[in-house]
Each structure stands twice: as C-alpha cells, then as structure tokens.
C-alpha cells in the first residue's frame, strides 16, 4: 500500500505516444500522479482522456519510440516500468507476462459496467478474487459481503446482473473492482450510461470510497460537481495535451485558458 506521504509518483507518464493508425491521440504526454491523489481528467471527447485510462489498464498499448532510455515514451507505476520492462539495463516493450504482473495494482470501473451476465452478483465479486488472487472461497465471500454492504446491495447477492437496474449494476462493478485491493482505481465515465435519477447513488458510493480509503483515483467524468468534491487536481485535456491543470476551486472557479472556459460552459449548459 503506498503511503500518502511518499514523494515518488505512483503513476508517471514520460513522453507517452499513442496513435491509432494515422491518428495521433497522445503525442509525448507527460504527467505525474502522487500516491492517494484523486485526479479528474476533463476535456472534449476525443481529447485522449479515456485512452489514458485504457493504457493504464493495458486495454490499449502505447506506441513505442526508439531508445526509451533517452526519448521516453514509457509509463511508470510505483517506480517500476509499466509499459516496458527492464532487460539488462535496457527498457523493452512489456510482454503479456509483465503486463499481467503490472496490472494487478490497478482496477477499473467501466462506462458500460461490464458485469458478467452469467454470474450472480456474489460470483461477480468473488470470481477474480478466487481465480487471480488465489483467495479461499470463504475469504473471498467475506470480502464480497463487506463490499456489497458498502455499496448498499447486500440484499442482491443472489441476483443476476440482468435483474438489476443500471445504477445497481454499476455499484456491483465498483465492489468487484475494490475486491481486488487495487492501489489505483480507474473510473471511466461511470455514470454516463445511467439514467439521471440513478447517478446520485453511484456517485454517493464513490464519495464514500474516496473518503474512507487512500486509493489513488483517476477519474474521467462529466459530473463536474462530483469532480470538484472528490478531486485533488483537475487536468483539462484537448487533442492529447494538457491544456491546463490545477486545484478544482481554481479550475472551476477561475480557469485561465479559453479552451477550458469554453469546455466548462458547454458542459454546464447541458
């Protein structure tokens, strides 16, 4: 568990590139995230914020550059190379085995929940604990009960996802991610697929998680009120670069950049 007082960044993007075919999404992007920091990424769609989360979850892979020792193009997590691995003092692009090891520290909650429809709520939360963390069934079940209680769904353990509302499904997904004891939690537009009346419950659960743990969080959201409440820092992205960043009060209260002002105006008028 990283301690909040540590000075070393828990996540470091060092001149990271990502392109999809001809489309450059990230062009030499660098930033650091401190342990236990809560950072919200905002910006218009296509600005690369979701790509950043997907790179960290290894759902996408960086576009490598030559000589990463000098030229960067590397993601670091907890001081270790993440997108790359150390091979005799040289950094080479990570293989599947390294990624498997590396991504253990990271959990993700998806826009579309992605619960397993063939498993009950209980099994959704215990399955990975048992199979990837090798916990005993009892241990996994105890942990699951605790977390399902936290998200307010202890009465739904035997239901299937298709029997739950979207908001309930998303809360199960949050419990499922937390059950893996991640150091870093990625939240990718977790309320965008929900009906308006269900958003508050999910955000409430996330507020509880934020205040009761010191998990590092990277959040992509359009819920500006939520971002303001839980974030230590807001990063405004456009076209794969950081336009502006700062504390939420400053960013929402008095943004300096015109692009930030335009974006916030557009979001608020929605």
């Amino acid at each position, binding site marked *: 568990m990283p301690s909040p007082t540590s000075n070393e960044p828990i996540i470091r993007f060092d001149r990271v590139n990502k392109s999809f075919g001809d489309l450059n999404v990230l062009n030499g992007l660098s930033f650091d995230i401190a342990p236990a920091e809560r950072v919200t990424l905002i910006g218009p769609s296509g600005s690369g914020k979701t790509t950043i989360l997907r790179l960290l*979850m*290894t759902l996408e892979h960086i576009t490598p550059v030559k000589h990463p020792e000098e030229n960067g193009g590397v993601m670091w997590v907890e001081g270790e190379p993440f997108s790359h691995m150390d091979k005799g003092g040289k950094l080479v692009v990570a293989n599947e085995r390294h990624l498997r090891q590396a*991504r253990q520290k990271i959990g993700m909650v998806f826009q579309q929940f992605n619960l397993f429809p*063939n498993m009950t709520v209980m099994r959704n939360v215990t399955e*990975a604990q048992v199979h990837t963390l090798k916990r005993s069934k009892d241990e996994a079940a105890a942990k699951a009960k605790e977390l399902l209680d936290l998200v307010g769904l202890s009465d739904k353990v035997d239901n*299937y996802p298709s029997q739950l509302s979207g908001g309930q*499904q998303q809360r199960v997904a949050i419990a499922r991610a937390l059950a893996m004891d991640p150091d870093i939690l990625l939240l990718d537009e977790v309320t965008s*697929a929900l009906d308006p009346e269900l958003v508050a419950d999910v955000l409430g659960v996330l507020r509880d998680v934020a205040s009761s743990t010191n998990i590092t969080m990277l959040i992509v959201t359009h819920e500006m009120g939520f971002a303001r409440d839980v974030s230590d820092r807001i990063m405004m992205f456009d076209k794969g670069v950081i336009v502006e960043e700062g504390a939420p009060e400053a960013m929402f209260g008095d943004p300096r950049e015109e692009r930030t002002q335009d974006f916030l105006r557009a979001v608020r008028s929605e």
Partner: protein
Amino acid sequence: MDFQAVIDSLPRYAEPLLVTIQVTVASAALALLVAFALGLMTSSKHLVVRTPARVVVEFFRGSSVVVQLFWFAIAMPVILGIQFDYAIAAAIIALALNYGSYSSEVVRSAIASVPKGQLEACTALNFTPIQRMRLVILPQAWPEMIPSLCSFAIMLLKASALVSLISVTDITRMATLIGGQGGGVNQLPHLALILVIYFVLAWLIWNGMRALERKAKRGVGIDAKLPKNRAIDAPAAAAGGGGAA
C-alpha cells in the same frame, strides 16, 4: 399397398433403428468435439493455430458429405492403409468431420459475439486467457450456439441415412431391403414409415435442444420467455432503457 405387411414387419426395424440412433448420436458427439476444437482454434489470434484449423474447416465444408462418406469408407483405407473394421466407424468419422467443420463456425461466431466489454473486464480482473474462456466467454456463448447446433444435429440425423449406401443396415437400408422384395412394389409404405420415424426423431432432437436452451439461459440469469436473441445484451439494454429487466 399392404399396410398389414408393414405393421407385421415393424419388429424387423428395431435393430436398424438402434443403428440410425447410434450413428446420429455418436457422430453428433464427435462433431461437437470437432466443432469446439476447430471453433476455438479459428478464434485464436495466433496465425499458426488459426491457419491449420481454417484449412481443415474449408476442406470439409468445401466438399460433398456424400463423397466424403464414400471416400472414408472405401478410398481412405486403400490410400492411407488405415482399415476400419466396420463401415459404420468410417461413416461416423466422415459425418462428424463434415458437420463438425460446419458447426465450428457456429462456435466461432458465438465466441466472437461476446461483447468486447466482457473481455475488457476480464483484463481488468487479470484473468488468464484460459480463465477468460472458461469462466466468461464459453458460459455466455454456449446458449447462443444451441439453436444452430440443433439445426446441425437434425441435418446429421438426415445425413445418417446415407450410411445405407455403404451397406450399413440402418432404417433406410431396412426399408429398401424389405420393400425391395418382389420387385419393389411394396417399397412405398416402408419408405413412408421411415420418413415418419425420421420426423419423430427430428422432433425429439428439437425438443431436447429447446429444453437444453432454456436451462442454459437460466444459467446466465436470462428468463427463457424473453426474446431469445439480444438477451446477453441485457445490461446495455437496461442502461439505455433505464429499468431493471
């Protein structure tokens, strides 16, 4: 037409009926194995795994099951020096390879139809590729496969009649044997009889598969009374439509 003669000859159909059932069940079981093996292989992202499976599938789908049956029963023993003790074994293998190749496409497309988000969740939870297949993909793909596999099982039942052409005494051969006596004038009622038998067998397969499908869908938390396609997408539908299913 002498219906009394047909009724009197019914006991003679008992053993051939078992042969028909045996050929159908054995080749269906073997075809299912072939279908999963080839379907998983053609779903692989590795070219070295995918290509040979693709070649096998195209080979068996590209040619005629009738010719394959004759080839396996008569030509292959000569060319490859493999001798089957019974024509029936050659027939079962030929039918299984042919229909297994067709069905492997059902397996492959059902696997491919599992939503991408499910695979991403597996990565996020750090499942190994085998765990992902066993715990998530196959349990979701299986109910989707059942209706198509059922169609292939019925086609296999129909194709089993071809074994009569290589001197295996199934109900078709028995009908031509009994009916063929006396210049073939009695053949018609016997052929009509076995058409009905085949239809009943097909109906049994169909009902068995329906029950299996209902059971499989309950296993993924889907009420079988819901419209059967799209049921796997229920979470997305709930997200868009806003209520509990």
